[in-house]
């Protein structure tokens, strides 16, 4: 086949891939079509890869095959992580993405350097690609470490930190501009690379674990943009398209999260949020009503309308299946049970939805915050399973609270509140929750899975009793 014909063929595959990627994201707008979306994505990716492998420039396939094998071997386990570890896993793969982009940038630079084909356009694009790529690489690694708790969760701060960081970035950018002006100034390129790597680390250090999800999706969009930059380097429209899609998705998700926490980007990135709060300690001993699983069961059985509010605790305890059992047991008795999903419950967007879906709870039963809050006053029992910040009334009235203004699920408006958690420890925001001291609140202490298991048994027992 003539070289020209092959080129056209490759263009066709890229074109098809771009279309498929867009459709893939489109179909993700509803669970019914979502899986079709995945297949579209897979087909698109295969098309693009096959197309690329046909490229005449390729002289040897050995290394490519090796890399494919390695990638697959690494990829499969990463796909089988428990759902609670998905945030880390996502961060990790962002870092891979960033790494790939950065390395390609370096390789292209050295190639064109040898061939003396460096132009300002090219070096400029490469600089951009490498800054974004490498800072995403180290930054995402750090984020993954913090989420995996191999690194300290709490933000590490020191004086002039932000100034220093920004200065660092400024230098990197300056070097990038310099190499754009004098394309062959490889020293400047070296500076760009090193500083970007360092900046990625320093950027994350002062950010607390609770903000990692936001940071992750921000890094997500950086990863996307670095792919775009690569597209500019290689003059490849498919890369640009896919990268842009990725970039905007990461951007939108982080905006959604920030809004749901009523925080600004700058506050997330430089706010050193989640340091130990003095006031958390300062609470003078208030009384707490604690309850046995039996009590909880009784309360639930006497209710007509129950709203279950899952939080990060349910994820930690892997309690979603017990939740399902409870859901079945109660609905069987004609009790109306709904789930109230806070947009930032858990540690990543949609975290709770996935967990409850895993437990085969029909997604029609999951209600979003804005839709459930009006129903709260008519709710007999609000069962809070390992949620804390997202149900903290302080967000509504306590101006001094760090989460003030963050929209919450108004469980405190329900007739009775049952909160399942292991202790009186604060949630990720690190602040005390007055809800637990309210009169209508009963605390069921213990691991969510454990407690719920007992509650389910008790409910079953009652049922039998009632039947007898």
């Amino acid at each position, binding site marked *: 086949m003539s070289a020209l014909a092959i080129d056209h063929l490759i263009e066709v595959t890229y074109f098809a891939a771009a279309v498929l990627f867009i459709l893939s994201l489109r179909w993700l707008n509803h669970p019914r079509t979502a899986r079709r979306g995945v297949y579209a994505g897979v087909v698109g990716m295969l098309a693009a890869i096959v197309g690329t492998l046909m490229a005449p420039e390729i002289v040897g396939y050995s290394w490519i095959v090796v890399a494919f094998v390695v990638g697959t071997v690494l990829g499969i386990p990463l796909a089988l992580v428990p759902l609670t570890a998905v945030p880390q896993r996502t961060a990790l793969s962002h870092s891979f993405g960033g790494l790939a982009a950065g390395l390609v940038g370096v390789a292209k630079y050295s190639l064109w350097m040898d061939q003396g084909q460096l132009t300002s356009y090219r070096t400029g694009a490469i600089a951009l690609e490498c800054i974004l790529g490498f800072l995403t690489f180290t930054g995402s690694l750090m984020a993954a470490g913090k989420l995996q708790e191999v690194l300290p969760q709490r933000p590490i701060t020191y004086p002039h930190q932000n100034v220093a960081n920004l200065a660092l970035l400024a230098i990197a950018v300056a070097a990038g501009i310099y190499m754009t002006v004098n394309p062959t100034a490889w020293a400047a390129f070296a500076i760009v690379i090193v500083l970007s790597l360092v900046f990625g680390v320093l950027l994350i250090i002062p950010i607390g674990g609770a903000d990692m999800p936001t940071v992750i999706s921000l890094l997500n969009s950086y990863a996307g943009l670095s792919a775009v930059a690569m597209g500019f380097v290689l003059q490849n429209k498919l890369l*640009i398209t896919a990268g842009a*899609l990725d*970039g905007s998705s990461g951007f939108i998700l982080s905006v959604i999260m920030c809004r749901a926490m009523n925080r600004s980007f700058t506050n997330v990135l430089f706010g050193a949020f989640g340091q130990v709060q003095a006031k958390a300690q300062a609470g003078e001993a208030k009384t707490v009503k604690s309850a046995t699983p039996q009590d909880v069961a009784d309360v639930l059985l006497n209710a007509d309308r129950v709203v279950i509010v899952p939080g990060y605790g349910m994820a930690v305890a892997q309690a979603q299946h017990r939740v399902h059992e409870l859901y079945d047991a109660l609905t069987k008795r004609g009790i109306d049970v709904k789930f109230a999903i806070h947009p930032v419950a858990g540690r990543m967007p949609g975290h709770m939805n996935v967990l409850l879906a895993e437990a085969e709870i029909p997604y029609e039963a999951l209600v979003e915050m804005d839709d459930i809050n009006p129903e709260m006053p008519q709710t007999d029992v609000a069962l809070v399973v390992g949620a804390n910040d997202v149900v903290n009334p302080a967000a509504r009235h306590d101006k001094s609270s760090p989460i003030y203004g963050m929209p919450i699920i108004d469980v405190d408006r329900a007739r009775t509140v049952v909160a399942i958690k292991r202790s009186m420890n604060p949630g990720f925001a690190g602040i005390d929750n007055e809800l637990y001291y309210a009169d209508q609140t009963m605390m069921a202490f213990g691991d969510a899975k454990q407690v719920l298991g007992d509650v389910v048994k008790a409910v079953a027992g009652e049922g039998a009793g009632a039947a007898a």
Partner: protein
Amino acid sequence: WSQLFVFMLATFIGLGVIRRVSRLLHTPLMSLTNAISAIAVVGSILIAGEQESTLTTVLGTVAVAASMTNIVSGFLLTDRMLKMFKTKERGR
């Protein structure tokens, strides 16, 4: 310029499409876009395949491996999660 044009248009599409993705599916969305942006594999393959110099070949190979990891894990994980979403009918 045509590159910029494509970028602009694709961004508009991205913003439009993503905003309409159901909240339910934000986690799968993250892993899917993750896999899609691993399209960087295309650039990596060319570099690993050209074998211009040892340096570039090594860099390219690593890049391909990294992207491939994202592709495989990204799509698998997304599908694994989506499989879990059941409606009342199918659910029980």
